[in-house]
Each structure stands twice: as C-alpha cells, then as structure tokens.
C-alpha cells in the first residue's frame, strides 16, 4: 500500500488550522492536509456521514474557505468587470454563484458573492485560491474607487446541511429561518454569537452556512452538535463533502474547473451573462458561443466496479478523447459516477464511451445531471 493518492507529502508544521481544530481532534477525526490546511477528512466513515446528510443532517467545518470584502462606491463596477455573472441582479441579502474569469474566459476561481448593502460585498472563495484571488482583485481594482480586504482569518464557517438543518438550527437563533430563501442570508445570532446565516451549501441538500467570529467557533459548533443529536446530526468531513457535491454535480476547483477550462465548457452557461456589458473573458466566451464549444463537462456512470478517478483518460474507438475530472462510488445511488470533459459529439446523454482504468477500457455512458436531486 503506497502513500494514498491525494495526500501530498507535506511538513505538518506548516499547515494552517481552523478555530475548530481542537474540536475535530477531540472527536477523533482523521486529519489530512488539504489546500495548506489541517482538515478533518472523516470522523466515523464517509458512507455514514454522507447518508446522514442525505437523510438527517451533517455539519462541516469549512473555515478554511477564504472571505474577501469588496467595498466602496465602485465595488459593483469592479465585480462586474472581473466576474461572469451579473452582479447588478443582486440585492441586499442575496447571494450569487459566479466565476472570477481570466481574459480567456477560464476560471481564476468559482465563488459566492454576498451583497450586504450598497457597495458592500463579501466574496467567499476556495481555500487554495484565496491568496491568488485576493491578488487578482487587488490588481484589477486599480482605477476603481473600492477597498479590497482579505478578512479570512477573522471568520469561522460552519455548513449545516440536510433535511433536518432548519429544525436543528431554529431553536439556537432568533432569526426566522423559514423566511430565508435559497441563496439568501440574514444577520442574526446563533448560540449567542453574531453570525451571517446563509441558505446555501455544497451538498445538494437544504441547509445553512454560518459565518461568524473565529473566537465563537467552538461555542457554535458544540451548540449545534448538542441541538442536533436528537435529529441524527453528525459531524462530517471533507470526504463526504466531496461525494455529496459530486452527486449534486457541483464543480470542484482544481478537479473539474481551473484556469484551462472555460465557464461555458464547464456547463455553467447560467453564470455567464454576456448581455451585462464588458467583463474579463467576455470576448473569448462570445467567440466560444458563436463558434460552438469543442468540449463540455458531462456526467457519466461506469458499469464495472472500478472507480474512474480524476485524470483518467476517456476513450472512444480506442483513442483518448477527453479526461475524467472527478469520480467516486456514489454512496446514495450505489453506483460509480463521475464527470469528464468530452467532445461535443459525445456529450449527449446515452452516448457510450470508455474510461481507461489501470490499462483496461471500462464501459461508461453519459447520463443527465445532477446525479442526485433532492425532493422539494
């Protein structure tokens, strides 16, 4: 058994820790290095944690995520310039999923933008990209009347996800959760700590993401655990977060999207608003739309037991035609699923192709996505 894939050799002493590190270790979590952070990959087991989120509730420490404030009279103008979605459609209390784009229409990062008020935005970005995004924003902010500030260190972030999330959280807050719609947020108190309560998530379930001051992280974590225990709430790690997001076909930066994949190729046309005016990468995206895409990110299933994983070649008639970007055994569907970039001619559901797994061509078929969609 060689060193496990996905666990690079790192000097543990250089890893950053979230304000909940002590809580994870006390709970016996298995800790791994992730994007420079010492993070819980699982507590009891990925399958149990995954199913708890689908059927009851799970909570994740996602304090490693980066938070960047963009404020000032021209904050909206800057964000319109550097992202592909239309920031002008946001109003105070609403959230938007979008991409920070390169001039090629590819991803600097994918992120959420929270509008807290006029000219006051909070950007929530991937941990591994936080420094890059901050530099990118600062660079492009020249000439705009705006202040860009990395406030990541001050925040904890806890994701409470699953059908029981609202029932668990409501007794701990004065905020009326029923009034918060999907992709909206309110400021409130959770277990006595001032928090931003956001109806968002990365699992395909209903749920909340809570942002609050780092020093209150443990208090909120333990209050949620206690309130959630009767509802079947369990702490869940990065492994379950990955299988959950993949079943819901939510992209993972570094796996499915990066600086070489365009927002349109990633099948995220709904966050590309070409009519909003000029923005970085617009010309490239217009060209792709006009000329037609050559490849697209699609969902697939494999029939065999072997799992198609990130980087495995996709084959058609014996030739490499694309690449698998994510793959896993789906704990909910009990079959092997994945995402791959395939030529447009092969991107239609029902199309058969192969994935090369350890030298063998394993049968695969393009399927509609998301793989999992919760009942509403």
């Amino acid at each position, binding site marked *: *058994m*060689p060193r*496990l*894939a*996905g666990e690079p050799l790192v000097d543990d002493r250089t890893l950053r820790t979230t304000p909940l590190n002590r809580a994870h270790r006390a709970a016996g979590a*298995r800790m791994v290095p992730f994007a420079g952070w010492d993070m819980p*990959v*699982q507590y009891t*087991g*990925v*399958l149990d944690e995954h199913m708890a989120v689908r059927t009851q509730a799970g909570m994740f420490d996602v304090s490693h995520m980066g938070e960047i404030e963009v404020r000032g009279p021209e904050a909206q103008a800057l964000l319109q310039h550097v992202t592909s979605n239309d920031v002008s459609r946001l109003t105070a209390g609403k959230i938007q999923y979008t991409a920070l784009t390169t001039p090629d229409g590819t991803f600097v990062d994918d992120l959420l933008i929270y509008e807290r008020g006029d000219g006051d935005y909070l950007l929530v970005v991937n941990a591994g990209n936080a420094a890059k995004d901050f530099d990118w924003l600062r660079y492009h902010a020249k000439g705009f009347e705006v202040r860009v500030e990395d406030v990541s260190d001050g925040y904890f972030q806890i994701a409470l996800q699953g059908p029981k999330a609202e029932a668990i959280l409501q007794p701990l807050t004065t905020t009326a959760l029923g009034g918060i719609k999907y992709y909206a947020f309110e400021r409130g108190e959770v277990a006595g700590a001032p928090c931003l309560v956001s109806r968002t998530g990365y699992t395909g379930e209903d749920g909340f993401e809570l942002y609050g001051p780092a020093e209150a992280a443990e208090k909120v974590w333990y209050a949620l655990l206690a309130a959630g225990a009767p509802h079947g709430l369990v702490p869940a790690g990065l*492994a379950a977060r*990955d*299988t959950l997001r993949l079943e819901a076909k939510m992209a993972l930066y570094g796996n499915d999207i990066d600086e070489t994949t365009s927002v349109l190729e990633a099948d995220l046309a709904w966050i590309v608003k070409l009519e909003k005016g000029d923005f970085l990468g617009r010309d490239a995206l217009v060209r792709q739309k006009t000329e037609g895409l050559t490849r697209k990110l699609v969902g697939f299933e494999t029939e065999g*037991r*072997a*799992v198609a*994983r990130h980087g495995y070649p996709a084959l058609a008639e014996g030739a490499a035609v694309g690449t698998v970007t994510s793959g*896993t*055994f789906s*704990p909910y569907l009990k079959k092997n699923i994945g995402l791959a970039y395939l030529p447009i001619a092969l991107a239609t559901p029902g199309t058969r192709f192969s994935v090369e797994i*350890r030298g063998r061509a394993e049968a695969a078929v393009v399927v509609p996505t998301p793989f999992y969609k919760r009942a509403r």
Partner: protein
Amino acid sequence: MIPNDRRYTKEHEWVAVAGSTATIGITDFAQAELGDIVYVELPEVGRSVSAGDVLGTIESVKAVSEIYAPVSGKVAEVNAALGQKPETINTDAYGAGWICKLTLAQPGEVEALLDADAYRALTGS
C-alpha cells in the same frame, strides 16, 4: 490490535504462514487510512508473482491503492466473498477480510519481513 502470529510489510500488508501457504491481507492501520472500501480487484488463481509485484487493487470511496505481493509464490486461492462484501476488510482486516493465499516459492522470504513489534514501531501503535 496487531496480531503476533504473522509478519508485516512496510506497505501495510500482513502475511500468515501455515506450512507452504501464506495468507495475505492488509493491516487494520491500512484499512483505517483508506476508509470505506467499495471494491477489491483480486488476483487470478494460478498466477505466479514475485515479491513486490502488484497482486491487486483496493478502492475506497476516496482513494485507490495497490496491494503488493509481500513474498513470491503462486496464487492458490482468493477471498471471493470480498466481491459482494469488500467492506469486510474494514470490519475484520486480520480475519474474514483476508485477500488471497499464495503457495510459497521461497519460504525464506518470510523471515525478511517485519515482525509484529517492528510493525508496531512503524505505525506508532
């Protein structure tokens, strides 16, 4: 936790010898590192392997890992029950979660493997 009746490799396989037959599996430490196991690719019965050859593959939800032959020999039997219940390795790595049996080609190779104390030291357990 780590049985004294067998030998170990630095790659976290165990070897239990009875006569000329060596039963092979992965250690409890290894199964815990892998997490929930969903598939085991077993070797073909009758195949001859040298120490260090890839015997098979174990897939957990989050990772894939190869199983190396700790010693040389011919595959005499595989644990076919793992086809339906690969998670047996998670629950009983040293017992029902065995992977295959080899007929030893060079019994002396076993002596070169780690004993339980050395493996305990390696894994800090």
